[in-house]
C-alpha cells in the first residue's frame, strides 16, 4: 500500500497503476445489473480500501449519487475506508469460538500488539479485526491470519503466530 511521508494514505486515483486497476474493474462490470456491489467488492479486494475520493469516482462512473455509494460502503462491514495493515488477524466471534474462549486470545493480542481490534499497528504491518463466524466451528476457537485458518487456538500458542508474521517480514 502506498503511504505518503506523513503516513496519510495517498489517493489511489493519483497513482496511475492503482487508477488503472480501478478503471479496469469499473469498465468490466459497468453493464451488470446491480454493479455497485460487484465493483466495490473488487476494489476492496484489489486496492485494500475504498476511500471517499474513490467512492466519488465510482459514483460518477455509475451515474448515481455519491450518497448511494457511500451508503453501501458504510453498510457492509467488509468495506473499509482506510487502508488495512499488510497482514490482517481476524478473531472469529461466532458462538462456538465465544464458548471456546476467543476473548482470552483477543486479550493476549491486545497485550502483544498494544492496539485494539479494528486498528492497525503504527508500522502498518498488522491489523486486528473481529469477525462473525467464518464457518470453521468444529475447530473453535479460530483465528484467521490473512486467508489461513488457525483452529483450536490457545492464549499461549498465539504469540507464535505473530512471531511467524514478523519472521516472514524480516526474511523479505
Amino acid at each position, binding site marked *: 500500500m502506498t503511504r505518503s511521508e506523513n503516513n496519510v494514505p495517498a489517493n489511489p486515483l493519483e497513482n496511475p497503476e492503482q487508477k488503472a486497476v480501478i478503471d479496469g474493474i469499473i469498465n468490466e462490470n459497468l453493464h451488470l*445489473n*446491480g*454493479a*455497485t*456491489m*460487484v465493483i*466495490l*467488492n473488487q476494489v*476492496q479486494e484489489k486496492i485494500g480500501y475504498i476511500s471517499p475520493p474513490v467512492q466519488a469516482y465510482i459514483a460518477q462512473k455509475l451515474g448515481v449519487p455519491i450518497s*448511494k455509494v457511500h*451508503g*453501501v460502503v458504510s*453498510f*457492509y*462491514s*467488509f*468495506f473499509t475506508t482506510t487502508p488495512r495493515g499488510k497482514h490482517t488477524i481476524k478473531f472469529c*466471534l*461466532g*458462538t*462456538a*469460538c*465465544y*464458548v*471456546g*474462549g476467543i*476473548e*482470552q486470545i483477543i*486479550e*493476549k493480542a*491486545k*497485550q502483544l500488539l498494544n492496539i485494539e481490534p479494528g486498528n492497525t499497528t503504527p508500522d502498518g504491518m498488522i491489523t486486528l479485526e473481529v*469477525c*462473525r*463466524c*467464518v*464457518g*470453521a*466451528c*468444529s*475447530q*473453535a476457537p479460530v483465528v484467521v491470519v490473512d*486467508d*489461513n485458518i*488457525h*483452529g483450536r487456538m*490457545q*492464549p*499461549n500458542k498465539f504469540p507464535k503466530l505473530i512471531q511467524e508474521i514478523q519472521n516472514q517480514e524480516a526474511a523479505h
Partner: protein
Amino acid sequence: MAFYRSTVLVSVDPVCVEKGAYELIDTLNDELIKQGLIDEVRILETTRLGDPQKLGPDIIVYPEGTHYTNLTYYDIPRLVEEHFIKGRILKQYAAKMQDAIDEELSAPKSKEVRVVLRNVGVIDPRNIEDYIANDGYQALGKVLTEMSPEDVIQEILDAKLRGRGGAGFPTGLKWRFARQAAGDIKYIICNADEGDPGAFMNRRVLEGDPHSVIEGMIIAAYAIGSRQGYIYCRAEYPIAVSTMNLAMKQARALGLLGKNILGTDFSFDLEMRMGAGAFVCGEETALMASIEGSRGEPRTRPPFPAQKGLWGKPTNINNVETYANVPPIILRGAEWYSSMGTEKSKGTKTFALAGDVKHTGLIEVPFGITLREIIFDIGGGIKNDKKFKAVQTGGPMGGCLPEHLLDLPVDYETLGQAGSIMGSGGMIVMDEGTCMVDIARFFLEFIQDESCGKCAPCRLGTHRLLEILEGICNGQGKEGDIEELQDLCEQIRKNSLCGLGQGAPNPVISTLEHFMDEYKAHIEEKRCPAKVCRNLIKYEIQDGPCTGCTVCARNCPVSAITGERKQTHVINQDICIKCGICYQVCQFEAIKVI
C-alpha cells in the same frame, strides 16, 4: 470416463500448499509415469483432509482409505514403491486413527442418513465428471425430457420438502406461486449467505458438491420458467465462491447451463454475487436489495418475492440445502423422500454440531431423531466428562434448550413449540461451565451489532435489551430487570419488520424460561453460578498445587501475577482483568475461580 485402480486425494488447503502440496503432486505424477502406473492411479486435488497445521501436506489413497500425513516430495518414490507396487502400507507416514478423522465430516455414524451430503468428501468437487459418474445431472435430464414444469412442482410438493433456510415454508408451494405469477422475466436465487454463527453446513456443500446445488437450481428454474439465476454467497467463504465459479464454468462447457440446455429449448444461466459481511442479508428481501447493489435492508412483505422480487420481478429464493435436496427427490421419487421424517417434516436435515461435545462436525439425520440421540449417540456426549447444560439451536434467533427437553423429536414444529427454532442447522452444545445470562448477552450483542437499523423496535429494542443484560452480567442487575426484559421481548417480537428483529428476543425468552434461577442469582445475590461473568468472580492461586512454574505470570496480559520461581504465585486483584488466561494455561489446576 476412465477407470483407475487407485485414487489419491491430495489436500490443497492453503496451509498444505504453503507446505509444498503442489511439489508433492508434481513428484507423484512424475514417479507414477516413471513406474508406468499413470493410467492406473489418478491424482485428485481436494480441500482439507485433516488438520493441515498438524498433518499437512497429507493425502488419502482410495479404495484403501489410507491417510498419509506430513509428507514431502522426497518421500514420494518410496511411497509409490511400497504402496502402489508392493501393496504395503508405509506405516511411518500413515496417520493414527484419531488424527486421521476429518474434523468437519467423518464417516456417517449409525443414526445418520446422507442425502444432501451424499457426495461431500466422496467426489472431487472440482471435476464435473465425478459428479456425473455419481448420477449427477440425471435428474435434470429426466426433468427436461419426461416432466412438465407442473409435474416437477407436484413431485416436490408430494415429497413435502420444506425450506431449509429456517422458516420451513413448503418449497413446492413457493415454486408454484412463482410459476403462477404474471410476467415474462423471473429470477431464481440461491441463498448461500450462511450467516448464523455456528453453522457451516452450506459451506461444506458448496465446497464439496457444488453441482448438486447448480442442478437443483436449474430444475427450479425450469419449474417456474426462469432464464436467469443468482447465487448470493457470503464473502467469508472464498473457497466456496471459487469452487462454485469453477463448477458453473464446467457446467456451461458441457451445455448444462446456458442456451438450449441438453439440446432442449430451455435456457438458463447463473451468476455469482458476493455479500460483504452483513448478517441481515440472509433475510430474503435484504438479500435481493444487496444483489441490486443497495444497502441490504429488508422491506415489508407482502408483496412476497414470488410476486415482486429482484428488480420487481417474480423471484424464487431458496437456500443451498433446499436446492441440494431437489436432484435426489426427482431421481428417487417423492415417496422415498417422504418416507423419512415426521408427519410434518419430511426428509433429512444437516446440522453443524459444535461446542462442548466430543465429536464436533457435520451430520445429517432424518427428522424425528431426538436431540439426545444427536448429542450423546452421534456427538459422543460432553467433552471432559462435564455435565450437559443446554443446547442452542437455530443460530442467534434460536433458543437454548435444557436437559429435560432433550427427548423431543427434532422437527420444525416441536423446536418452535419448545421456544427455539430449526433455523439453518447450527447446534451448539454447552456444558455446565457456560453462563446462560452471558450467552443471552452474547447473542444480543451480535444481533444488536447486525441490526440494519431500519425499524425502531429492532434498532432501539435490541440496544436496550443488551444494556439490561450487560448490567446483570456486571453485577448491576436490579429488581424489575426481568419484567422489563420480558416486556421488551414481547414488543420487539411483535413489531419488528423482518425475521432478524422478530427472532431477536428468542435467546432471552428461552433462557428466562429455562434458566431463571441463574438470572436471579446474578441480580439478587450478585453471583454467577457458572463462574463466567467477570465482575462477579475472582481468580486466586492455591498454595498447595502451585509449583511456581511461572507460566501464569508469563501469560498474564496485564502482569498482575507475581512470584519467585518454585514459589507460590499471587494475583494482584487490583490489576487483574479476569480474562481467565492463567486458569487456562495452568497445568496443575492451581488456579481457582471464586
